[in-house]
């Protein structure tokens, strides 16, 4: 087949394209991933017993806002990374800012505490299981996002995979906050971030292998 023939073949088979194909695909993946995270939460961990009192506690909202902000920035990053030639650009600020804020809050909490209290602030009681709990809850979103990106065109597969992993991690962390009883900023700054970093690293490794087109 010469190139002219290929061109007429392709032009004959060109249906009109949905303008919002990328957002639709990613949005759907995010929805399924969130649903999966919620289901896994109910099955594997259950919500915390005192959830009814949480809406009055500011730290509870921080535990939700932190991953939510990262998820929003992560979604923008993933959408850009799924298109050839689009640089993520200012999204790094969107990702860095929530992290910086939480670290500042953590730093302030540590400074205000006595040296004896600090380890408890950072480690709490569940520091060993928390990151893995978040990583587990991120699996549905991870799978869904990778599926979505396979139908798109990421030209930097490692970065795109990392972005998808981070977004999945943020979904997992958001869900996990409904179970986790740790309420200190230092814990959040270290262990929630670790929990989101795990799927991000997995995404960076799997991206070049799975996201080819």
């Amino acid at each position, binding site marked *: *087949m*010469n*190139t*002219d*023939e*290929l*061109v*007429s*073949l*392709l*032009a*004959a*088979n*060109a*249906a*009109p*394209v*949905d*303008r919002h*194909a*990328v957002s639709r695909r990613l949005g759907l993946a995010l929805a399924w991933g969130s649903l999966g995270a919620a289901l896994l939460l109910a099955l594997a961990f259950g919500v915390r017993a005192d959830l009814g009192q949480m809406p009055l506690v500011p730290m509870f909202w921080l535990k939700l806002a932190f991953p939510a902000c990262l998820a929003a920035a992560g979604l923008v990053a993933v959408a850009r990374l*799924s*298109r*050839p*030639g*689009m640089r993520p650009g200012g999204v790094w600020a969107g990702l860095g800012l929530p992290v910086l804020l939480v670290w500042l809050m953590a730093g302030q909490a540590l400074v205000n505490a006595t040296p004896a209290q600090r380890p408890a602030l950072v480690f709490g009681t569940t520091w060993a299981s928390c990151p893995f709990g978040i990583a587990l809850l991120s699996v549905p979103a991870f799978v869904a996002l990778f599926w979505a990106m396979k139908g*798109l*065109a990421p*030209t930097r597969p490692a970065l795109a995979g990392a972005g998808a992993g981070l977004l999945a991690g943020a979904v997992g962390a958001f869900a996990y906050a409904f179970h986790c009883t740790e309420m200190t900023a230092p814990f959040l700054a270290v262990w929630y971030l670790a929990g989101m970093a795990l799927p991000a690293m997995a995404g960076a490794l799997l991206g070049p292998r799975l996201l*080819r*087109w």
Partner: protein
Amino acid sequence: MERIPRDSRNADNELRLKKLLLQGLDGDATAYHAFLKELSPYLRGFFRRRLFQWPDEVEDLVQETLLAVHNQRHTYRMDQPLTPWVHAIARYKLMDLLRARMSHEALNDPLDDELEVFGVSDADAADARRDLGRLLARLPDRQRLPIVHVKLEGLSVVEVAQMTGMSESAVKIGVHRGLKALAARIKGSL
């Protein structure tokens, strides 16, 4: 953010091609045909200068890139300049080829050649070594027939559905998956 083109000729090419692509994405088959036809020589010129060690591979890479542009056309954003999008796809396929041929060569990539995509036009199409026609013939019927009928006879989806006994959505899915499978088989034959 708009890039200021170093060469106004590149800018004219970009504008003309972008207009054709946008019309094509809306469903104008003639405009889309013109877009792909005009794109080919630019891709050829771009690759010829970068594949001076393997001139026989150029036409295959042009075809593979056209197929990729077609299969991924839903990832083009209207407010995005066309040049970076095409360049990213071309470069991605070029890197795949270089990776397959010689892992060392892939590291030597000129950084600032993005705006050159629409710079050199090479209309002299060599024969492709890899025969896409043969790869197409090896697709399963449910993918190959819709593609071939729509192209050969210019039939609509409804007419192809009646002729082959497939449902209309099966015809559309057959075309979509068939062209993706074709792209995957090219990678397999590298």
